[in-house]
């Protein structure tokens, strides 16, 4: 069979191929990625989708935890202040109950207790970024309102008993809030109600039912401390879950890099090879392009 006289077409096809291969290799080198199209490695591309999804979930959970940590810390510090205030109230009530104080002293203690009650009320109405912390799901309404018209004064709860929780990527549920009725106006340990009773007891200048109410206040104090443990647990669990999510994201990123990254030395070698092939082809084309036998005939 005769040699194809139009060899230039073949040679330029080969030139196109080496050029395309060079472009592909250069792209891998510059991006550092082995898979630049899903057709390059379908399995790796599919695994990458799953990895990206998990990494994004972990990242978004880490962001959420930094927001909710603020909320939980505000809640915790509010409850800590409540405990401090209640301890003060207890020591005042103990003074009032020891039978050595006169009527005006008792009235003064009543006024101090009213101050503590107002402080606890304002702590119960704590808000974080404009959202009331102890209102259940009713975060836009002031949770507790005081009515001084009655004796003892009464406190009304305007929130509900809703409890929010945050789900970690591993599926554990972390409690984010304590509804106010559970902390401050519970039936078994009514913090604000007991304070109001004590204020009313000593306002008359006598101890009244101060002893019984002081005992109730002690119960309420213990109860608030217990409630605070729930929030402290949540903070600890949230920190642990956030750390775990960050660590998982780091590991997954490492796996992803391993899966997708180009082997630079190997790609460089291939690129050098493709370049040599190309320059060899160009030389062949240049040599073959130098005329035909007709040029020799003219002599």
């Amino acid at each position: 069979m005769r040699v194809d006289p139009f060899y230039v077409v073949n040679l330029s096809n080969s030139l196109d191929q080496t050029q395309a291969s060079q472009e592909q290799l250069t792209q891998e080198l510059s991006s550092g990625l082995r898979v630049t199209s899903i057709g390059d490695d379908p399995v790796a591309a599919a695994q990458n989708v799953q990895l990206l999804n998990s990494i994004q979930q972990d990242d978004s959970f880490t962001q959420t935890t930094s927001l909710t940590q603020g909320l939980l810390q505000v809640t915790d510090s509010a409850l800590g202040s409540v405990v401090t205030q209640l301890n003060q109230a207890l020591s005042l009530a103990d003074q009032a109950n020891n039978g050595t104080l006169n009527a005006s002293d008792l009235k003064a203690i009543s006024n101090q207790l009213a101050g503590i009650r107002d402080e606890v009320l304002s702590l119960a109405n704590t808000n974080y970024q404009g959202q009331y912390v102890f209102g259940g799901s009713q975060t836009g309404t002031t949770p507790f309102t005081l009515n001084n018209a009655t004796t003892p004064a009464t406190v009304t709860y305007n929130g509900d008993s809703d409890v929010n929780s945050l789900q970690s990527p591993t599926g554990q549920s972390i409690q984010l809030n304590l509804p106010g009725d559970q902390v401050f106006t519970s039936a078994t340990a009514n913090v604000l109600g007991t304070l109001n009773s004590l204020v009313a007891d000593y306002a008359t200048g006598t101890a009244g039912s101060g002893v019984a109410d002081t005992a109730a206040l002690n119960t309420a104090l213990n109860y608030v401390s217990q409630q605070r443990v729930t929030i402290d647990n949540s903070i600890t669990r949230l920190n642990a879950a956030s750390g775990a999510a960050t660590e998982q994201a780091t590991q997954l990123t490492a796996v992803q890099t391993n899966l997708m990254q180009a082997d630079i030395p190997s790609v460089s070698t291939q690129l050098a090879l493709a370049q040599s092939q190309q320059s060899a082809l160009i030389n062949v084309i240049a040599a073959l392009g130098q005329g035909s036998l007709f040029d020799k005939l003219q002599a």
Partner: protein
Amino acid sequence: MEITTNLSNEIARYLDLDTRQIQLTAANMANNAGSDLVGDNGNAGNIFNAPAQVAGSAAALQVVLTDPNKIAAAGLGLGTGDNSNAVVAANLATQAFVNGQTPSDFYSNLVSTLGATVSETTTQNTALTASVTQLQTQVSSLSGVSLDDEAANLEEFQRSYQAASQTFTILNSVFASALNLGVETAVA
């Protein structure tokens, strides 16, 4: 060709998004099952429009929610601080409701299937291109005009012509010699 049909089916499946529509419907249902920031209770509205599912309807899919306050994060009837419905919506991610798979599994499978088709098509394309080039080379080798061949032929014909003309010259001198009876004359 078979490969082209496979590919167009694959892309059509991708663009048709029948299954994706199920996902959007689920998201819409979730948004209509809670309370939003502007007081809607169970009627917060769709996040995505939901065109009737016919061939090509996916092209009309779009986000119709314009007010972020209309995202129903709270459970039905609960205050704005609740997040139970948001948790329900977030859990859609782990539920197998797209062709019996979770959305990310489904998408991952789609990528892998489409990638395999792309890879297969590329391989076939390379093989067929090589085959076409080879056949073109064969055709050209049979039908193409080679200047070297022509030059060689030309040279051959010129030599033949010269040889033939030389024969005539010799014959001419033979006849002239015969006519003049061996006497050298000026007449050829």
